[in-house]
């Protein structure tokens, strides 16, 4: 097994251990804790009143628009990272190439900005 694969096996092991850290306290406390549910205790918290209406509503779209814009620009970041890592070797051409890429994306940002997507209303 090469060092490359070894790293990922180790990460897998860490994931396993991490999951144990996350789950073990819940399991241990499930053995130890008392269990006395009552309808009053199990009510939804709404500042001492009974909850009115549904809380799973189709909420304001603004929150999700950010998510949409994010997906686009996060991809950009991913593309930028390998470029950044090999920047030294690539030289002027790659620089100009990336400038074009960035300009296109900045154009997108400006468009979104002008469109008012980034403005919280």
């Amino acid at each position: 097994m090469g060092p490359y694969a070894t790293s990922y096996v180790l990460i897998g092991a860490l994931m396993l251990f991490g999951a144990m850290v996350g789950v073990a306290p819940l399991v241990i406390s499930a053995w130890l804790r008392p269990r006395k549910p009552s309808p009053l205790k199990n009510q939804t918290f709404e500042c001492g009143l009974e909850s009115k209406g549904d809380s799973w509503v189709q909420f304001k779209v603004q929150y999700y628009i950010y998510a949409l814009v994010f997906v686009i620009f996060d991809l950009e970041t991913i593309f930028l990272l390998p470029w950044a890592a090999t920047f030294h070797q690539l030289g002027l051409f790659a620089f100009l190439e990336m400038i074009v890429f960035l300009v296109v994306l900045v154009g997108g940002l400006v468009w979104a900005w002008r469109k008012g997507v980034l403005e919280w209303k």
Partner: protein
Amino acid sequence: MIQPITETIEIGGSEQPLYGPRSYQVLSGNDLGSQLLEISMGPHHPSTHGVFRMDVVLDGEEVVKLKPVFGYLHRNHEKIAENASYLASMPYTDRLDYFCSMTNNWAYAHAVEKLAGIKVPERAEYMRVILAELTRLVNHTALVGFLVNDLGALGTPLIYAFRERENILDVFEALSGARMMCNYMRFGGVRVDFTPDILKRITHIVDRYPSFLAEFEKLLVGNDIIMSRCQGVGVLTKELAIASSVTGPMLRASGVDYDIRKVDKYGIYDRFDFRVPLGDHGDVYDRLMIRFLEMHESLKILRQALKQFPQGGEHINPEVKLRNFRPKAGEAYGRIESPKGELGFYLISTGGNLPYRYRVRPPSLINLTILEDMCLGEKVADVIIILGSVDIVLGEVDR
């Protein structure tokens, strides 16, 4: 025939009557079919300053409807007072605005003195002014701490504020035996005389308070986050403030020059040289600043009062029979400028030992009625600081 008042004012983008109940249309946010969320904030909420509820309808972060609901702390104060002797109601007034029992006492004593025509000795007047201004310091310092706490600063400014407040409460305790429920004023004076030690302690507090205020202001007033959070938020216009009979620092933050200490000159306030700070914008930041400026003015009054403090004299009018107190039949409305606004007591006497009618004009409650008009169109986080800037104490709102 009385002409109906038809003046209107624009609030939250719609024309509303300036006087009387306003009705707001709840507008759905947009045509994308997004739904509104109806939340009740309170009574069990970290920052409603007591058991107070706001039924809020949210469109995203924005408040499109808000209904204040109070009465959770109703204790039947007025009716109890009608079945208790005049003096027995004095301790009850402590529990109205439990942050400023001294001014509550004074307002009630003032009303009774007006009703029975009692004269207050000069020494007692000075003591009352000193205690009232100390109470104003207590209230405003704590309020600034609470307001910044509402802004999300986790307790640090609040604890700094409380540290200074404690010093004043220590004096109250030494005077009356209680830190907050002082029950100190009596009809025609105060309960016990100042000792020289008390005066020395008050002088010490007044001397070192400016340095605390300077530090506090340096930390808070110029803070970028506080400015961006408070400025232009929760604006209360002059017209609306007057039409809603808002009083106190809130009214003055909207730029209306109305301070009962200046208007009525009750007690001996005409002997002191002080100014009434006014705001320009009527936003939360102005209300915060007004509190700072008023504290400076209070310190000014305190310094003068301590300087002029008479050497001898009675601390209470000896002719007043507190035990079997029976004012002659009549009615009186006594009001003072409490730290929160106009605190008034309305009394009707039939000549007996019980008041026939006893009514409180609580500044907190009346200032609170304007809450919805200030909050509409603001963000949900702003609701909290607007409520904080109104400066309510639920004991007084619900009585």
